[in-house]
């Protein structure tokens, strides 16, 4: 075996003097040129472990025990000055949020060449030339012009490419990437992964890649470390860990990756609950000058669909495609500019608030962000009971009893009913939000990205809960998501939206297996998928480039 580039041995990190360790005796080795993935849920300590290598723990955090050796020396003991010589030059780091990790006040060129000039003493001109070359490599068009632009002029995916170029510029031996694609939408995510793979292979840099998504790292990981509750619970080559997991947690992480089992076509006739006809929603921008016409954005453009009783309709689109606006319009939260919404045959759009609500008691909503969706100053039980405020026929006690029952049905025991939202975990909060929607016994629940803010294993549990509730209560769902992988197992029918328009629709089976629109194909082709075959996991990709042959093919590693 080659001499390792970086060795972490028995590293323990804690906050404060008596806090629980956030990383507990973790060890790992990275060989030169190796791609090492650390996988775990949020709070598992993976980010702290990675940051400790560069000595960039948040204030209050410190290394209690163990050490990090890099290139033959212990770097946990280095003076701040010597550490700075390693940062950027020897070890580069890419952060999760490309919106936050580039300085909004400085031009791209200035930021990029900064580290290079610091470490190599190149003059401004030469540094700019090199920066331009790297921007070109990561696929930024007009790299020379980009050098003089500011970060806000680029999209999230482009910024992350700039980050990659910027970090690789001084020629580090190790690149730490902390969830670099988590904040991006599916396609940008795939593009950034592809670029990262390409440039790291070309430059031969070792990569420590941190992610919560096992499917994502399967692209390229040589070795995998799985972390849970501050500990390393599994470690080894990609084959060992992903294809033959030993711990329950790893199995859960694997199970959370989409299984690619679209529901079969269901042609039974069903009663139509909700009809949306030629819905159009426009937003008026701010007038920049009083006499100028305000810019009008058409968020939803001529959208029509039906929702039948007992089915799950998935609305898929990238951010800005109008899917969320559409969901809110069904609830009457956003007015339609044209078109109509009919509920069981009655027109409900365009009604006054009161009348609207009496007619649409049967529609409820669950929002994406369970922190934002629950009033921070109300207790769990009150949050749920508030949904019954307009049910005059129920007594106070009845309302409380029913709220209690519903909460328990959603998996939240009595012990949690008097807590405030911030005292709950993300998954528990989303259960409260679901209970709140469910308690008034609706027919339809609009689920607006209900699992996007959650960890993958929690996502899986929430999806199972939703599935169970649907069966028990005969619910219909409108499931809005940017991630086509999430809805594959639960959707009956699928709508794909781009720029406010529906570009593809059909049964889940048809859309997943023979997508027609280019965008759908793209979405599906970047979706890695793990399949269990004879008790072992295999990573598969779909190949939809040729619609005639819409079969799965095992990934060629």
């Amino acid at each position, binding site marked *: 075996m080659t001499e390792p580039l970086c060795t972490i041995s028995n590293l323990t990190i804690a906050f404060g003097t008596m806090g629980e360790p956030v990383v507990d005796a973790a060890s790992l080795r990275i060989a030169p040129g190796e791609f090492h993935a650390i996988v775990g849920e949020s709070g598992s300590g993976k980010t702290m472990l990675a940051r400790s290598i560069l000595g960039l723990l948040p204030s209050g955090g410190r290394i209690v025990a163990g050490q990090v050796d890099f290139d033959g020396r212990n770097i946990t003991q280095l003076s701040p000055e010597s550490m700075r010589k390693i940062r950027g030059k020897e070890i580069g780091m890419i952060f999760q949020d490309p919106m936050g990790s580039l300085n909004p006040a400085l031009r791209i060129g200035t930021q990029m060449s900064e580290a290079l000039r610091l470490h190599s003493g190149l003059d401004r001109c030469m540094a700019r030339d090199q920066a331009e070359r790297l921007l070109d490599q990561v696929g930024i068009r007009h790299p020379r012009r980009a050098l003089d632009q500011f970060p806000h002029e680029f999209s999230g995916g482009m910024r992350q490419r700039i980050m990659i170029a910027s970090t690789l510029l001084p020629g580090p031996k190790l690149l730490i990437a902390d969830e670099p694609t988590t904040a991006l939408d599916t396609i940008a995510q795939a593009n950034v992964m592809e670029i990262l793979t390409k440039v790291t292979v070309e430059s031969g840099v070792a990569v420590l890649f941190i992610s919560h998504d096992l499917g994502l790292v399967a692209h390229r990981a040589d070795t995998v470390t799985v972390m849970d509750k501050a500990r390393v619970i599994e470690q080894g080559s990609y084959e060992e860990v992903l294809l033959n997991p030993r711990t329950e947690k790893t199995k859960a992480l694997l199970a959370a990756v989409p299984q690619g089992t679209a529901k079969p076509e269901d042609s039974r006739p069903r009663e139509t609950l909700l009809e949306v006809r030629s819905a159009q929603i426009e937003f008026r921008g701010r007038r920049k000058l009083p006499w100028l016409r305000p810019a009008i954005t058409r968020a939803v453009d001529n959208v029509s669909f039906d929702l039948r009783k007992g089915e799950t309709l998935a609305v898929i689109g990238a951010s800005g495609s109008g899917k969320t606006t559409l969901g*809110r319009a069904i609830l009457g939260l956003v007015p339609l500019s044209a078109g109509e919404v009919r509920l069981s045959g009655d027109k409900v759009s365009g009604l006054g608030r009161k009348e609207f609500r009496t007619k649409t008691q049967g529609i409820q909503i669950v929002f994406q962000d369970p922190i934002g*969706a629950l*009033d921070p*100053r109300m207790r769990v039980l009150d949050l749920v009971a508030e949904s019954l405020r307009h049910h005059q026929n129920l007594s106070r006690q009845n309302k409380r009893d029913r709220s209690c029952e519903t909460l328990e049905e959603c998996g939240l025991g009595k012990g949690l009913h008097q807590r405030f939202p911030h005292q709950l975990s993300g998954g528990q909060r989303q259960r409260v939000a679901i209970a709140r929607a469910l308690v008034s016994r609706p027919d339809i629940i609009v689920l607006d990205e209900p699992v996007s803010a959650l960890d993958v294993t929690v996502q899986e549990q929430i999806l199972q809960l939703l599935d169970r509730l649907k069966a028990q209560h005969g619910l219909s769902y409108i499931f809005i998501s940017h991630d086509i992988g999430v809805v594959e197992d639960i959707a009956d029918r699928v709508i794909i939206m781009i720029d406010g328009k529906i570009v593809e629709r059909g049964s889940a089976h048809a859309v997943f297996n023979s997508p027609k629109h280019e965008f759908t194909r793209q979405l599906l082709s970047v979706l890695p998928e793990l399949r269990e075959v004879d008790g072992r996991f295999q990573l598969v990709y779909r190949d939809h480039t040729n619609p005639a042959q819409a079969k799965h093919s095992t990934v060629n590693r």
Partner: protein
Amino acid sequence: MKYLVALRFNALIGISLVSIVAIAALAGYVVPSADPLHIDYSAFLSPPSPAHPFGTDNFGRDVLSRVLVGAWSSLISAFGTVVVAVILGGTLGAVAGFFGGWVDRLIGILTDTLMAFPGLLMALALISILGAGIVPMIITLGVSFSTIFIRVVRSLVLSLREQEFVQASSAMGNGEMYTILRHILPNCISSLLVLATSTLAFAILAESALSFLGLGVQAPNPSWGGMLAEGRGLMGHAPWLVLFPGFAIFLTLLGINLVGDALRDWLDPWMESET
């Protein structure tokens, strides 16, 4: 940990100072130790002594009892100012933030215009119309401080309105008033409390400045600012005339600022960058 201890320590000092001032003000109001208006020519300009711990002024009036009574008028006018500012600014800000549209724009332009007249100048101008005195002072300072509340409450309400829990309330079919009272207002209160505390300090400062200029509390009634103005010409001979009232203002402000700081850290760490 250490910082927390230091923080609590600061808060404790702040609370004690504020309580002392409040008790002193109450004591000065209810049981004046010596009549603050009593003129005693036999003892004018006497330095601090057991009989007059803070000395006497050029009319022989007891400085201690004048400082105590001054505390009362200072605190009353500062509280009055904050109440006017909170009610006026809070209502306008909430209306602007919640309803948006032309109402918001109108209130916005009004606020910008009011802000164009620096607080003290506006107070001076309004007092020149309304006449000097404690009530005109409360009204003018209240109006001028309300602009801060309009801005802060408006931006708070705007950001809360976009929050999903407010949308969820609408989705439940709750009316606007219910949503404002049940969901928006309770989530504004901590920020308002912090802002009101710092405004209280500014109001005391402004009150003493106006009284110093002779436009607030009118002589012969004692006020800290007025005492400073009266003692100014004599301070070479009788420094206690400016030292004690000034010190009273300092301790009061220190107490309020310390409490405000602790409140800010405790309730609302992002507040400061908003105002």
